[in-house]
């Protein structure tokens, strides 16, 4: 295959990954890496490097939409990011020492878990219990526009959430993904923030977490220009278009199909990594 054909094909796949990432709310990276590895037999290190840059691009592209409304909770975001940034650097350094088959298997498992998470219903359950005292001291509580006007929200389990963000950061650095699913899980389920606040705050810190690993990836040569270029531009095009489509189409059937696609990619990734199949 000549480079120009390769670049065009990668661009097309990246558009699809960006689209899928937005429609499932998982972000482009976690879908993109298996696609590059399984379809194009790209070395997983290159795929991770390209994906990491696509993650930063997406997070920056979505920032004006999310941040203009002031929905991201910067106090919570930055507090959690301390753990995520450290985790990301540790993860990025570990890549060189962890066997490729382990990385592939872990990515497959994260993919399957993400598919499971995105197939579940979201519900915000306001609680009467007072917030975590630490959250009160750090002024983390806030308010958000709910269905019936402005509502205040409380914040729980700050330290458990921070620990989980450390894990999210580690996975981000180790796999070249944004770890959005784990970040939202920590804020939405553990800290019990409203879903909207969780996703916007997660988007705010995803770019920072990925930037922490990017330096290590760059100096190790994981970020190849010929591969990263079509991936970055393709995912950007796909997710921008996807965000437009998302406003119109909210079909449940579509969502189930996507979840199945992602689960299938996850299973293939595990099989390929463990047994060298395909």
């Amino acid at each position, binding site marked *: 295959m000549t480079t120009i054909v390769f670049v065009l094909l990668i661009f097309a796949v990246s558009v699809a990954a960006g689209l899928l990432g937005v429609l499932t709310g998982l972000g482009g990276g976690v879908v993109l890496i298996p696609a590059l590895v399984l379809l194009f037999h790209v*070395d997983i290190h290159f795929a991770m490097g390209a994906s990491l840059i696509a993650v930063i691009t997406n997070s*920056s592209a979505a920032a004006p939409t999310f941040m203009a409304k*002031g929905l991201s909770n910067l106090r919570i975001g930055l507090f959690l990011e301390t753990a995520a940034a450290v985790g990301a650097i540790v993860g990025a350094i570990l890549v060189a020492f962890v066997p490729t088959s382990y990385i592939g298997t872990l990515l497959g498992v994260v993919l399957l878990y993400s598919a499971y998470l995105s197939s579940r219903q979201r519900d915000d359950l306001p609680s009467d219990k007072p917030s975590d005292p630490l959250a009160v001291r750090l002024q983390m509580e806030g308010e958000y526009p709910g269905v019936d006007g402005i509502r205040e929200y409380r914040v729980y389990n700050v330290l458990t959430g921070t620990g989980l963000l450390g894990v999210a950061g580690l996975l981000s650095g180790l796999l070249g993904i944004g770890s959005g699913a784990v970040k939202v899980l920590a804020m939405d389920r553990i800290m019990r923030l409203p879903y909207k606040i969780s996703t916007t705050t997660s988007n705010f810190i995803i770019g920072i977490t990925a*930037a922490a690993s990017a330096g290590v990836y760059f100096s190790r040569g994981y970020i190849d220009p010929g591969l990263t270029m079509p991936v970055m531009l393709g995912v950007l095009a796909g997710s921008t278009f996807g965000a437009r489509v998302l406003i119109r189409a909210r079909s449940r059937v579509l969502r189930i199909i996507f979840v199945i696609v992602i689960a299938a990619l996850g299973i293939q990734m595990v099989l390929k990594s463990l047994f060298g199949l395909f």
Partner: protein
Amino acid sequence: MDEQTKQLETKIQAQMGRILLWGMLASSAIVLMGGILFLIQFGSAHANYTSFDSVGSHIKTVGAVIRGIRDYSGGALIEAGILLLVVFQYIRVIMSAVMFARLRSWFFVGVSLFILAVLVYGLFF
């Protein structure tokens, strides 16, 4: 949180969002230009990304990026656009630090500076 604090936070968040968007657009434009140059230079060559050991990106330092741009290397220009994108993420953290300094919330100034230190460590790793 009082009304003034909330307003300032919302205003700075909106500014941050806009700066990030412009940074992303600028870096994408540079990557696109580099990409066109790269395809002119290597478009008809054989593509091989299957093995990391035999290929590996040759451009691994800021110095190599600058030298490459002087030689009109498309690949180096792509890497320059990517580095610009990464550097713009630092602005999120720096702007947060400035915002919390204006609010005299020193704990979060410290949190922001800690994250900045981790990012800088990663860059010079």
